């Protein structure tokens, strides 16, 4: 069991000694049990830190944001950041290291084990316990999730309430960390996704219809991208909303910006947006599932990344975020890479 007091102790020590400029962790959110991300800057606030099955967010996103923020500062605070990482989050750290977005010294990783379980999918849980007041959600035994509802404990088996990504997770404790909390209970590494299986089994037209139905709802709010720690690009190639305009950017440069897709949420544009994003995340997506979780339209975008994750493994034996030293999926090749699809 992860003892949250130990995380707090470590966080307090780091802050008191001035070793870090802050601790990115989870705190209880304004809507009761549901944890939200926060940056703790003072040792007095350390007690706000929590660790429970509602800690869904991939906090590495805030490492990315902090990095960008510091880059804008005239006098950046060079002290590292401490950040609480789960298994998937730690893989995200590895990808950032691999892509040299951060240096290892910039982060102190407070690794937490997912207790042989995972995090809760709020939607699933709320479907089971509609509109009741949930007071607390904690880990039970054998990966079970315990929710205290109106003073009563209800135990849920993992498959009922855990997020899909956790059910399919291959690294439920961090692969890289400085401090580790909890136990390393290795789950069976299953490189499977029932969701992907289901789509693969469909006929072509069914697949098309499936995705058309799903993607036609996309509002292009870009939440999926905003939440993704891998989408840290200064300017996203497929979206017209994050321009990297600097004082030195010339009028011509601005005029020459390519509109690969239109800003309108037309189905075709939604397709291209999601396909580009999927390709860009191939070998980089660590399946933290955040993109899918945040989507206000409940579009199963994770299934795109998951498909490519599967293919990267099948074709190239590549798994994202396992080794920060290895070259990334597309910046290397093997003589023996498959080419039976080539004429």
């Amino acid at each position, binding site marked *: 069991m992860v003892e949250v007091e130990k995380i707090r102790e470590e966080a307090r020590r780091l802050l008191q000694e001035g070793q870090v400029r802050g601790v990115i962790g989870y705190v209880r959110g304004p809507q009761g049990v549901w944890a939200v991300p926060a940056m703790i800057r003072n040792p007095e606030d350390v007690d706000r830190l929590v660790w429970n099955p509602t800690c869904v967010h991939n906090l590495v996103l805030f490492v990315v944001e902090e990095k960008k923020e510091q880059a804008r500062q005239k006098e950046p605070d060079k002290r590292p950041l401490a950040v609480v990482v789960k298994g998937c989050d730690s893989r995200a750290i590895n990808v950032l290291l691999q892509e040299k977005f951060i240096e290892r010294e910039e982060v102190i990783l407070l690794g937490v084990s997912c207790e042989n379980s995972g995090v809760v999918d709020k939607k699933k849980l709320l479907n089971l316990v509609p509109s009741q007041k949930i007071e607390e959600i904690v880990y039970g035994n054998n990966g079970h999730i315990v929710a205290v509802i109106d003073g009563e404990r209800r135990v849920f088996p993992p498959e009922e309430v855990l997020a899909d990504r956790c059910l399919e997770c291959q690294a439920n404790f961090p692969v890289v960390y400085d401090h580790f909390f909890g136990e390393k209970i290795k789950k069976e590494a299953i490189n499977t996704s029932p969701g992907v299986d289901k789509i693969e089994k469909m006929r072509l037209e069914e697949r098309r219809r499936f995705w058309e139905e799903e993607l036609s709802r996309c509002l292009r709010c870009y939440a999926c991208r905003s939440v993704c720690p891998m989408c840290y690009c*200064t*300017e996203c*190639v497929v979206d017209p909303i994050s321009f*990297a305009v600097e004082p030195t950017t010339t009028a011509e440069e601005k005029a*020459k910006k*390519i509109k690969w897709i239109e800003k309108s949420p037309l189905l075709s544009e939604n397709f291209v947006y999601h396909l580009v994003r999927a390709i*860009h995340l191939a070998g980089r997506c660590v399946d933290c599932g955040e993109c899918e979780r945040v989507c206000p339209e409940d579009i199963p975008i994770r299934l795109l990344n998951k498909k490519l994750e599967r293919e990267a493994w099948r074709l190239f034996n590549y798994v994202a975020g396992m080794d920060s030293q290895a070259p*990334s999926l*597309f910046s290397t090749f093997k003589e023996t890479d498959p080419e039976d699809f080539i004429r």
Partner: protein
Amino acid sequence: MRKKIGVFVCHCGINIAGTVDVKKVAQELSEFPGVSYTVDYVYMCSDPGQNLIIQKIKEEKLDGVVVACCSPNLHETTFRRAAQSAGLNPYECEIANIREQCSWVHKDKDKATEKAIKITKGIVEKLRWNEPLQPIKVPVTKRALIIGGGIAGIQTALDLANSDIEVVLVEKNPSIGGHMIQLSETFPTLDCSQCILTPKMVEVSKHPKIKLYTYSEVQEVTGYVGNFQAKILKKPRYVDPDKCTLCDECTQVCPVVVPNEFDLGLTGRKAIYIPFPQAIPATYTLDIEACPGVLPIACGKCWDVCEPKAIDFDMKPEIVEEKVGAIVVATGYDLYDKKNMAEYGYGKYPDVLDGLQFERLLSASGPTRGKILRPSDHKEPKEIVFIQCVGSRDPELHNKYCSKICCMYTAKHAKLYKHHVHDGQAYVFYIDIRAGGKGYEEFVNRTMEEEGVLYLRGKVSKVFEENGKLVVWGVDTLAGQDIEIRADMVVLAMAIRPSSGAEKLAKILKAAQDTDGFFAEAHPKLRPVESLTAGVFLAGVAQAPKDIPDTVAQAGGAAIKVVSILSQPELLHSPLVAQVNEHLCTGCSMCVDVCPFSALSIVEGKAKVNEVLCEGCGTCAATCLRSAIEVKNLTHLQVHDMLTASLGGLK
């Protein structure tokens, strides 16, 4: 200002006009945005055709020209030159290929015309964003660095020096000469190796244009073609060559004996030694590893006897810097490591030798003064087994490639053995005989027929000692039977491996190695002496196993390649190179990883293009997730707009 583009549609006689309605192409293009002039003409590449272009560029004040004609491979240069003579930047001229890719391959005139229009519109869109470019000029240091002083390095050095180019030759051993100086006589003519090599070595040492660093290694190379800076580590030899008179007093008194590398351990040498009498530079070297000590001077006997006080225990490693314009890698080979061949008793039984050891036995200056004697008991071997392809052509366990020279030198060895031991019997185990070379087949045949050497086709499974004999177990696959030979000596034709430091050097030079570890040539057929790194060339076995004639030929080739660079006042490099948008680059270094020419690096968190090395292939551009790097004049925007134009709009 928006470009004014002229479109010139060529009939190519009826070659284009026969299938493509050129008038219609011109007409449609005249209505295309940005096109301010169009014309069709019967032969655009003819003088009048070219003059028409020149004249219209001037008259119509065109900023860009598209010639819709044949493949750019044919006349791109022609038309660019024409455009240039009219005052246009040559990169403002583009070719739309409507012949090879259109008129010649289609019959339906309407469809071909439609396609020609699309192709041409696409090219107009591309041209719209073309930047005027100037070739990149790179000043050139007229000096060459040659790494490795074997025959390859020596030959390249001499060829270059004789072409009036200054040469820096770096050899890691105390003397130049490489493996060839160890050989006895050389196939196919059997002339004495040392006799033909030593004059060249002397020439190297005397040549005013050659600066020789022996006992030295290249530590770091920076820069790029035309402008390399090399850091060379001079290992201390503790003997001042200028003072040393070669009196040999020191070796007389030195108490330490270690195996002699030159004789591959068949003899010993002192801690202070000269590798071989004809060594260049002619001086002694103190092997500090073997010497009992400098501090405190535990021995110092040599120092005591050295009259001219040439010995200097305080000598320090020294790093010198040399600026050169080109580099030739001639680092040769090593034999495959003994360790790998335990089944043949190599390294275990003194009378199992490798080819080079056998060369030393054959050599008149060798340990046995040219007599063939067993190292174990100094007796003449009466039965001798040569095994070919040891460690070669064995993808499962050893090296997959053919070492190429072993067939020949084994034949030579067997023949020379017979010359020495007339009553001896020589057996050769072979897989097959590869004697592709002038006079080679005849040489092997003579060995078989005239010398009565017994060639057995098959593999040897085991060699072991029994009662003072070496028992060789093998199969004769032709006869289909197992064979056991009780021999006095076994000679293994060990596989040729890239020399031990090759990997390190490849990294230093950012030159690629092939999967076997040899330096990779830029193109297996067309650029066999160029490495993948601009300005770095290859000679000799460093590139692939080969014999002396091939080595010398390649050395000459490398030399002329170097000359072709260094003879120019400055290098002109295509300006179609990658460029980085620093606002977008996050420094992820994926592009750095994929660049086949090592033209990219990360400087202060951003990718940086070395324009001299970049070949403009665009692999980086497709790899970069953020479109932060693109090749000039074929940017993403250009491709996007070409697509838009040639797909003809959406409905």
